[in-house]
């Protein structure tokens, strides 16, 4: 069980969180009404699914109920940072990690 630091509540067990998904993919302003099917579907379904350092969001469902962001290495599970919704990911020295295969 991961230990994820909620930027509001402090370090909390993974079981307090729900709904992990990719972060920083804003919904198109127009709701996609001015987009082609392909562009729209890109937002709805397409995901980076990075092998390496990934930006994801979790809902602190059993805590403050806020959505938070998390920078995590998807191979080692090392969490490099967590930060609030709406904030930009912090600059972290070796956060560019990506595994080739």
């Amino acid at each position, binding site marked *: 069980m991961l230990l994820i630091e909620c930027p509001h509540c402090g370090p909390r067990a993974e079981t307090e969180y729900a709904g992990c998904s990719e972060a920083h993919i804003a919904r198109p302003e127009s*709701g996609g009404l001015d987009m082609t099917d392909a562009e729209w579907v890109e937002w709805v379904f397409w995901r980076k699914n990075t092998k390496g350092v990934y930006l994801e969001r979790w*809902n602190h469902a059993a805590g403050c109920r806020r959505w938070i962001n998390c920078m995590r290495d998807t191979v080692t599970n090392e969490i490099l940072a967590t930060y609030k919704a709406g904030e930009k990911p912090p600059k972290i020295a070796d956060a560019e990690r990506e595994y080739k295969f």
Partner: protein
Amino acid sequence: MSQKFRLESGGLINRDKPVTFSFNGHELKGYDGDTLASALIANGVHLVGRSFKYHRPRGIMSAGPEEANALLQLGEGAYTEPNARATMEELFDGLVATTSNAFPTVKYDIGEVNSLFSKIFVSGFYYKTFMWPSKAWKFYEHFIRKAAGIGKAPEEHDPDFYDKTNAFCDVLVVGGGPAGLSAALSAAATGAHVTLVDDQPRFGGSLMAQSGQEIDGKPALEWVDEAEAKLHDLDNVQVLRRATAFAYYDHNYVGIWERLTDHLPVKPEGLPRHRVHMMRAKQVIIASGAIERPLVFCDNDRPGIMLASACRTYVNRFGAKPGNKGVIFTNNDSAYATVLDLIDAGIEIKAVVDVRKDPLGPLMEKADAAGVKILTNSAVVGTSGRLHLKSVEVAELSDDGETAKSDVTEIACDFLGSSGGWNPTVHLHCQAGGKLDFDEERGAFVPAPSNRTNPNISVGSCKGAFGLADCLAQGFEAGQEAAKAAGIKFRKSGKAPTAEAVDEGNRRLLWLVPGKKPLGQSGKHFIDLQNDSTAADLQLALREGYRSIEHVKRYTTTGMATDQGKTANVNALAIVAQTLNEAIPTVGTTTYRPPYVPVTFGAIAGRDIDDLLDPARTTPMHSWHVNAGAEFEDVGQWKRAWYFPQPGEDMHAAVNREVAAMRNSVGILDATTLGKIDVKGKDAAEFLNRVYTNAWTKLGIGKCRYGLMLGEDGMVMDDGVTSRIAEDHFLMTTTTGNAAPVLGHLEDYLQTEWTDLEVYLTSVTEQWATASIAGPNARALLSELTDDIDLSNEALPFMAWTPGTVAGIPARVFRISFTGDLSYEIAVPADYGLALWQALMTAGSKYDITPYGTETMHVLRAEKGFIIVGQDTDGSITPVDLNMNWIVSKKKGDFIGKRSLDREDMSDPNRKQLVGILTDDPKEVLPEGAQLVEVVKDKPPMDMVGWVSSSYWSPNCDRSIAMALVHGGLKKMGQKLYSPQADGRVIECTITDTVFYDKEGNRQNG
């Protein structure tokens, strides 16, 4: 037979406390402090079981968790436990153990015929045969399965209970040997919160098996006792014995399995059998020791053949003799410690067979000086004795060690201790993602530094420090280092406990000891004793192209038994490396996985079993329903009253009665479970516009409106009625099962997408209890219980709500209907739910008020063609498919799901659409889930055009009614469809629209 292999004195057993136990029906004696294995050895029981595949006779081969042979069936009846390692089970009065894999007895086991076929019964055997005739595999398999497995699973409900707890500490120390104790002491001295766990009943680790060691100038075990006492006295230290750290998950989350009653003859009331501590540690110190590696020689599996260190443990710790005259077979100096201790105990050592050409080492020198016969550059090349070792054959080795000279000496003996060096217990380090380095000199994998995900430090012999002095020093150092890393502020003090440093001597790594004949031609070199895999099997696998160590593992099953290859894996991969002519680290290890030792399911499950597996949520009126004899239906976690049968009624009769009662007079339903969300803020209406398909801005205060909610994929996700409380204030309802997901969904948009909207959401699902009364007499009934609400159609029309007082309780009364009849939903603060219900029942008696459950509600709503999300939708249905275009605003701009509805295939007229279905025979009720076809064929496959999502007997229509999702259904009104049933019948039916009753909707308008 009474403990004739027990030494006169010595050992950490309590000779004043004799213990009686039984093995294979024989009553035997041992002492308190024995393990089952040591007691068997003391009684001269050498044959304890049969091997997995060949049913070879087997004896106890170790004294620890690495035991591969002595897997016994413990206890009886509901208390029986399969595959218990005799070496880890503490002896207690009344213990009952039996051999697992033998029939009829361990001495005469018919399974031994397998041995006769062992020549063809090699690795890969199953893959190559049993393929003909093609249908016969299940027949063969039946017998194969019977022969496989080891112990027997219990057949009765486990009467014991298990406990589990979360746990936290700064520094977790795994292992209470010298390294671990030293680490715990030094970490504890910093003030850090320390937990020390050890899987044995007492601390000391391998010190218990040794003799003559001193720490800080004291006898080692005295030092251990003092250390333990010191730790016990400290508030910041938790000490757990009989506790195995079995799993190391990410973020330093370690599972610890503590056994509380297994060793007790009488299990105290209230004490769980096992307790699992799920430990979140800031830092972990792994001090798990090392496991001796056996040498791989021909016929190395006979009862009486053990690890050298096990012989020593039995003598020193348990005062039990592994035999009367033994041979020690080694490639290193540590086995001479065994030799010396055994001699001291009066056991005859016939010879030490040492593969080294010119052995060096202080212990060897001592043994030499004591006159022990040492055969250098020699090896055991064969053994004999079917049920118990009788003799070994020894020959001199060739220069390269690959063959043995033909001159063979036979040495009679009744036990053999073998030592091929030591494997650090790196399991936890590796589970934590740690890498290994290969120590060429010792032929051992040792931990590389840990990673950042799981900070830990290995110390002592699991780090490859095989000397006591080093173990103590490393432990001390690590204790402070870990405390510091855990953020403890302290001043360095104290110094490491000391012991005499001893030279380890030299080694000769001889991974595969040659036999008299080429490998595989006579006798067997077992690698994995438990799974009966041999060196010849490994080489066969390699020959056949299974080159990766992972392939070798799986093809030969090496390391896949209950001991997970604790004594097998390193030997196996070294032999693979040697065969392939590759370096050992290139071949690498297989993956270390939890658990370190097998752990009871019940302990891992903890308390989340039986009724506690999952919450059963109940409404404030639940007790009333129970008393009224309701049957309940599980909806999500909720218990909802399903129907209220009266004596003699089945569900059908009860529902018919309930339905009729509602339509004729008045019925009452507990509607508390619907989700409720308070929506507040100046942008509330705009927010609703964006999350529902229809428009909300113009909804008047005091009015209610039905809404459909879609996912971004355009599919129906939820529905419900939302009421306007004030200009900036709404109350939303959701379906019972979706309350939490919908709230999460809405919060997501507010917090991350539309942060500019001023809206706050609060869940009030549980704040309100709701009773829904429906039927022609609903108004009359309600009017009796309220004097401050004008119930007239003008004042409170359909789809309006008002605050007021009902039965003296402040309430919100909603004139909404899921039944199509005049209906009021009365919501009161939940504490008053029961009171409201009772008041309605009392006042309603003159109208014959009838409580009804969800089944009746379903019938009533189906009569009106109202959908249930999750029943008439399945995540692949759009509002258009539901023929609910009317609710999808064309004028509004964006709302969730809108864009997806415009995708190419979404407007395909042939999508599945919701229609009504009438069976041609009105008495026939289609089963829900029935499939519909246009053309019936003799036999499948048949093209299905749709499926029945809702289907009921409708008392009001006096016929069956159904709804279905049918391809292009809306254009097919009046068309015939057929539903072929499992029993071969075909139900004929016709497509119609979905409203079956009161099409004009007069009833709900009251």
